[in-house]
């Protein structure tokens, strides 16, 4: 795409013109491939919003650490000697080399291989080779690794690169009501396996749009799954075109419908203890709900039951996040998440069900990737990049009157209303 075209797209994003277009039901195709638009997203969204780094259960003991990214910024997430979770930029305070070059592990100190500056896992500089021969004591007396803002919610660890951003609590708002269905299902807490990491040739937005809004693709993209009976079906299952609520609530959106995840869940009694009465009402009773969704900007969640062995199903839940590397390059992290108080046998079956259906070899997820990389690739076309893509399904639908839960909901088997919510949220950041 010509530089002038990119500038135009960027200008339209900032001025509100693209928001107006999205609300009328179209997006410029090159929103998935433009370098300029991508740079704007990196600066205005990924340096301003709360971004998921991992889960507390990945670092259970003092000294445990994981290394994660927000776009190109590399961060160490560690549990210090007092048991507190800390997040540091992986950048030596001397000349900027990474002080940690592994993905995870356990250590009390990080030693920079360049000149040997050593930092405790509290971030404090504790060692400088030839200290007296190199610097004035004063100039290196109060140095520690830089920290972004960070906070946790129900085990999820987030960071925010903007010192002035709202708190995580304000950011999430009432979306926590729904987030708990995936990450807050036990009074004992949840634990993750993974992550699986891989690089895909697709724009980061496509996964978020897909998981919070697009049930329509299931009919065709995931047709093979019903052909081979991968998922557990209930006798009452109304089928793929059953109506669902497309819910929009503060920092997220999801699709909820009557399903068997909570109804048949082996840990029902304990899950009930973890939920508020209102949360429990939604997932129990005559029409128990379940579903999948996205937390903005880039976290996907899904809960379902997979036929893990002959005649045997297991409840599975994943968390998936996207690290944007370029407009057409994204690193994907996926974790399996399970109740800590579940019996070991159930945890194992749940993990195996996840691996069968989702993640890198999952029989559902593997069919999604080609779609996302293809949409990204056609967005690069000199002609097709300037075409529009549609997000106008059920454009003027009335809000559902029978949704007595946080946020708004729209009732339809298929709808693109949550895609429009996603872009309105996005443009709140891009226009700021």
């Amino acid at each position, binding site marked *: 795409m010509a530089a002038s075209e990119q500038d135009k797209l960027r200008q339209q994003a900032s001025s509100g013109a693209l928001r107006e277009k999205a609300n009328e039901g179209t997006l410029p195709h090159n929103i998935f491939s433009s370098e300029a638009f991508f740079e704007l997203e990196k600066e205005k969204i990924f340096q301003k919003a709360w971004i998921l780094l991992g889960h507390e259960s990945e670092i259970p003991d003092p000294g445990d650490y994981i290394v994660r990214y927000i776009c190109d910024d590399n961060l160490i997430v560690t549990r210090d000697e007092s048991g507190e979770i800390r997040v540091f930029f992986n950048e030596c305070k001397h000349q900027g080399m990474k002080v940690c070059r592994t993905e995870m592990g*356990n250590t009390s100190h990080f030693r920079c291989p360049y000149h040997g500056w050593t930092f405790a896992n509290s971030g404090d500089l504790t060692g400088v080779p030839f200290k007296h021969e190199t610097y004035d004591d004063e100039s290196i007396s109060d140095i520690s690794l830089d920290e972004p803002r960070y906070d946790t919610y129900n085990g999820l660890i987030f960071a925010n690169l903007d010192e002035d951003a709202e708190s995580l609590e304000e950011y999430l708002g009432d979306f926590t009501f729904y987030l708990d269905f995936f990450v807050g299902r036990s009074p004992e807490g949840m634990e993750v396996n*993974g992550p699986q990491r891989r690089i895909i040739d697709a724009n980061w937005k496509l996964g978020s749009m897909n998981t919070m809004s697009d049930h329509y693709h299931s009919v065709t993209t995931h047709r093979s799954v019903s052909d081979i009976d991968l998922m557990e079906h209930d006798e009452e299952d109304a089928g793929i075109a059953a109506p669902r609520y497309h819910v929009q609530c503060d920092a997220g959106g999801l699709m909820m419908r009557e399903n068997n995840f909570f109804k048949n869940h082996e840990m029902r009694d304990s899950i009930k203890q973890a939920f508020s009465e209102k949360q429990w009402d939604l997932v129990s009773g005559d029409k128990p709900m379940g579903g999948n969704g996205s937390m903005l900007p880039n976290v996907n969640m899904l809960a379902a039951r997979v036929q893990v062995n*002959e005649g045997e199903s297991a409840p599975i839940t994943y968390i998936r996040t996207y690290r944007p590397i370029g407009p057409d390059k994204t690193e994907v992290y996926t974790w399996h998440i399970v109740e800590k108080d579940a019996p070991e046998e159930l945890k194992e079956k749940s*993990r195996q069900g996840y691996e*069968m259906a989702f993640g890198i*070899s999952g029989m559902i997820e593997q069919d999604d990737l*080609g779609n996302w990389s293809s949409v990204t690739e056609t967005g690069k076309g000199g002609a097709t990049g300037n075409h529009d893509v549609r997000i106008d399904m059920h454009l003027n639908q009335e809000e559902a009157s029978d949704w007595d839960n946080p946020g708004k909901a729209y009732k339809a088997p298929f709808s693109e209303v949550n895609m429009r919510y996603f872009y309105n949220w996005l443009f709140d950041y891009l226009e700021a």
Partner: protein
Amino acid sequence: MQTEPISKPVDDVELFHRVRSFLTREAELIDARKFDDWKELMTEDLEYKIPVRATRGENTHEDDFLDMHHVEDTKYRLEKRINRLNTEYSWSEQPPSRTRHLISNVQVGNREAEDEYAVKSNLLLYVSEGDDPDHKLLSGRRHDVIREVNGSLKLARRIIHLDNTTLPLDRISVFI
């Protein structure tokens, strides 16, 4: 441990030849996409696992695996994957990937049980898709258990240790 190097490979030319032929035949069936025939080379209690590797510490190497797998199949799950590929809607393999399994450094160890052998091999898997001139390449070490069943060899267990932690693939839709 089942993934440790073989300390003393067997000195049995005939057995080595049978195992080598088995591995070649098996790889050829995958590359020829004769998955239903390939499946017949597996025992009913098959374990087929690709654990997720992580760069975990400064001094560790062989055992850096998470409690998570890229693939953790049984015969039932493998059959599901093959059944899926046999449907009209297995989009991730339409058009089909072209794969080339190069199997080398084969070592046959002592019997694991009365009728089983520990077999190690290296894998280089080349994957070409559509008209894309770029290829995907995966390398790894395979830790197999091969069993004598009524005079034929069958694969009872395979643990594949890929050399990547972050995979250079958007999906695993081929058999590794």
